């Protein structure tokens, strides 16, 4: 079921990409310039590049859906994902829920509170402003 949906997505996307000039990322929009990423060797412009672009496009859709599901404003998800590099999108697609999310907010149970005071005093953690 899941695989067939993915396959369906892949095929339809490939069709869309080949039929229209939908603007997925091309380093320099004009045809015959060699883009900077190619010169730097950060993108593999070999025979597999078309396949990779389709794959990366799928990852981008995947991450957009994941962000939406996690409460991001639907109007923002596309712009947020568009501003990321292919490898960043890949990282998000694979481990969005495992990555650290900087927040600084605290919900602490008592035992952990005691331990953290000790560790603060020891200079291993840095949580309570009254421990200096």
């Amino acid at each position, binding site marked *: 079921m899941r695989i067939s949906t993915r396959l369906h997505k892949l095929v339809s996307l490939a069709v869309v990409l080949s039929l229209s000039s939908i603007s997925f*990322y091309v*380093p*320099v*929009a*004009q*045809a*015959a*310039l*060699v*883009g*900077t*990423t*190619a*010169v*730097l060797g*950060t993108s593999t*412009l*070999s025979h597999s590049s078309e396949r990779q672009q389709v794959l990366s496009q799928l990852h981008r859709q995947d991450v957009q859906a994941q*962000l939406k*599901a*996690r*409460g*991001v*404003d639907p109007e*923002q998800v596309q*712009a*947020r*994902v*568009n*501003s*990321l*590099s292919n490898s*960043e999108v890949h*990282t*998000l697609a694979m481990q*969005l*829920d495992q*990555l*650290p*999310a*900087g*927040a*600084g*907010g*605290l919900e602490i149970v008592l035992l*952990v509170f*005691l*331990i*953290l005071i*000790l*560790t603060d005093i*020891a*200079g*291993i*953690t*840095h*949580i309570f*402003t009254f421990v200096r």
Partner: protein
Amino acid sequence: MHFVWRVSLLALVLLVSACATPPQTAALRRADIPYHPIELGSVPFFPQEEYQCGPAALATVLVWSGVDTTPDELTPQVYLPSRKGSLQIELLGATRRHGRIPYLLQPRLTALLSEVSAGHPTLVLLNLGLSWYPVWHYAVVIGYDLERNQIIMRSGRLPRDVIRMEVFERIWARSGYWALLVLPPDKLPATAEQAPYLEAVTELERVQQWRPPARAYATALTQWPDSLGAAMGLGNARYALHDLAGAEQAFRTALAHHPDAAPAYNNLAQVLADEGHYRDAHKMVLRALKLGGPMRETYRQTLQEIQAREHGGRRDNTHKKEK
């Protein structure tokens, strides 16, 4: 009883381990870092609201770099409601959306302090808690004092959070020493390395911003005058900005230092053709083809296009062309 015993053992372990100075702090004594205290007082401060240290820290460095923004404006661009926080990668994306180059530092205390002493506030990810009880937090390092062994940060609700160097190293190490520099395109990181810097600049092209990359490539050329990537990037960015003369100059700069760079011949040929100099364009693309390489197919396309234009006369003199 058992519990009390465990906690006291833990306390003992902590006290013992706290005595050891973490490695990078220890190495600072031998490092080549300006010794006098530094504090970048002009860096703005945005007190963090609940869970919003990502937008607050990012606003701090963006506003310092000359962008007009606020944490409230950045929240919809980086905040992830289900996690009640912001991901590192999304801070990079939001930086690009504001025309700034996100540059990740080498994971070293010396790199961080070098940037601060060069006047660059640096955004860091810290784990204020423990590896098994993480409290992830973004802060901006704005100063240090080696004599007193201190780091100074804009952090959370504190405009001036002063902590011991050892403590800072421990809580910073848990994020893998993650440090982000947000610079305007006319400034290079003090610790800039060519390849990662140019890569960081090209990723700006993705959000279809060409002026900041053009500026940044030009800045890179002042530091690394013979950089092929910087010259090519500059040429491509100027081309995208419809600055044909500037693009031609940049590709010629690339060729002056790298006479074997086939892509530079190809791109120069394209610019010359757009300028209506078909004969020169033809010559240049033939050199690209002679050198060959993995982009041969592109050069052949360029050749065909130039030939078509030569035969079609001055059909099209602008650099916009139909495919």
